[in-house]
């Protein structure tokens, strides 16, 4: 058996691109996802590791499954659990900042075009302000809550006692020496801790609720005017309306693309 010749030959062929259909680097860079899919059902955790998963070919992978298995969806659900207020504002941003304006502008009726544009701009601005304020204000609080509840730092006496009791009962449960009564107590204490965490996580939302609403009301007109180029016109009398129509006044346009703020991020040749 000419093993030496094989080794010798392999070392020389490493650098030869003609022998491979695609380079090793290219395959790693471009096909990593495919190989992951081939390994198992999940693209996050390897299915074969559990010994319970089926190969991808036997599992029906619909578009919905692709969404659920995607990285961004996992991140979204994690974010929703860890940052209740900010995630809620993010959902509101999508609904109020994208879906609502799209629906408002696509509704029939040319007469109230001005109102529609203003309402759409209002929805976008309120969604953006709500998300920005909520995220900026509550993120440090969420982090502080995580430190207390998960890392178990900065705990006061009462909360430490609760945690110690849960830890003791869990130890008993794991050892198999727990009584039925103690098991119920553990269940109750764990539930109480979880509910308490949810409560504490959402308190900042109630605290900032009023200032955030005031800030939104105050900021919407300037944002609409200077960023989106939309301004609420005062309602005029029919006579004035007639004059305006004869002057060929057009309905306001969302000319925010021409605003200096957006001019900086515009692409293409100037």
């Amino acid at each position: 058996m000419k093993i030496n010749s094989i080794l010798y030959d392999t070392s020389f062929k490493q650098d030869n691109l003609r022998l491979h259909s695609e380079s090793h680097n290219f395959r790693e860079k471009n096909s990593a996802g495919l190989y992951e899919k081939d390994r198992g059902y999940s693209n996050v955790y390897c299915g074969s590791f559990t010994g319970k998963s089926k190969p991808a070919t036997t599992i029906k992978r619909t578009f919905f499954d692709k969404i659920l298995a995607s990285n961004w969806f996992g991140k979204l659900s994690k974010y929703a659990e860890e940052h209740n207020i900010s995630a809620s504002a993010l959902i509101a941003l999508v609904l109020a900042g994208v879906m609502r304006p799209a629906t408002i502008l696509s509704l029939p009726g040319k007469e109230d075009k001005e109102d529609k544009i203003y309402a759409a701009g209002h929805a976008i601005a309120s969604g953006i302000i709500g998300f920005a304020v909520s995220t900026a204000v509550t993120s440090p609080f969420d982090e502080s809550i995580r430190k207390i509840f998960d890392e178990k730092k900065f705990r006061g006496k009462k909360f430490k006692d609760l945690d110690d009791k849960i830890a003791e009962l869990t130890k008993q449960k794991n050892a198999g020496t727990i009584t039925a009564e103690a098991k119920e107590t553990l269940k109750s204490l764990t539930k109480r801790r979880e509910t308490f965490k949810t409560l504490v996580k959402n308190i900042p939302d109630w605290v900032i609720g009023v200032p955030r609403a005031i800030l939104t009301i105050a900021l919407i007109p300037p944002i609409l005017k200077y960023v989106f180029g939309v301004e609420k016109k005062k309602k005029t009398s029919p006579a004035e309306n007639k004059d305006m129509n004869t002057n060929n006044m057009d309905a306001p346009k969302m000319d925010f693309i021409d605003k200096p703020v957006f001019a900086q991020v515009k692409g293409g040749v100037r």
Partner: protein
Amino acid sequence: MNLTVNNTFSKNNGYQRQNYYSQQRQPVFTSKTQAPEELMNKAMKDKSKFFKYFNEKYDKFTDFIADKFTSKIVESDSLMKLADKFKNSDNFYQHCLTIGSVITSGLYMQRTLANDKLDKDRKNTLAVNQGLTFAVSTVGAYALDKYVKGWWDNVTARFAGHLLGDGKFYENYLKQKQAIAAENKKLVQEAKAKGVKPELKSAPKVGKLVEKHNYYKTLLKTSETDAKTLMTKVKGMSPLRAMIVFGFVYRYFVPVVVTKPANFLCEKYLAKKKAKTEANQNA
């Protein structure tokens, strides 16, 4: 056994020469790529320094909040009692969302009532309109949330199956759910015959099933952080549902569908009232 790997081919033809040339060219190639690599590394180091500094400051800031503010809240007896009271509620997060909306809607109602530009009748009617719209939409949000819960639990099981890498997880969950539903149906019939209230079994919880799963147990032993992340993702599905449902009702459905008809009815009521007052005055 004789493997016919002809080595002379590689020795005598272009492979070797090509390899030689590629080796000869290599230093030139690396010298060209080294400079950007060094620059990249330097930039990364500078970037990481900047982020390190920022992260340290942020960490200290959150430590301060945790120590001086959050820890004090966590020690509150009244909040602990409140948590104890609602610990068995399936809708606790939904209640939290509603409280937030009560505050915001309350502010808008207060502003309407304090508006000097509106007459008293209009102010009251508008405030009642806002209050009623809020109440109806909240009831609608709870109803919609309850309606989609069963379906969303299935989605959560499917999602958990992906995280666990277990294609059978979702099917097993559905089987368990169907078995419990059939059992509950029997219990209802039996209780109906006896004339007592049935004690129904609750549907299987995805979180509990994940805890019992072999992969999760193994992960818990090998990497606790990864196991916690997995569980956080599964738990996050429940608030995500409430966020989407309540957000849809409050931020989309009500402004697009409910507000206009509500305002129309409000204007109609005010016009009718005005006409009635004028008729009384004339009489």
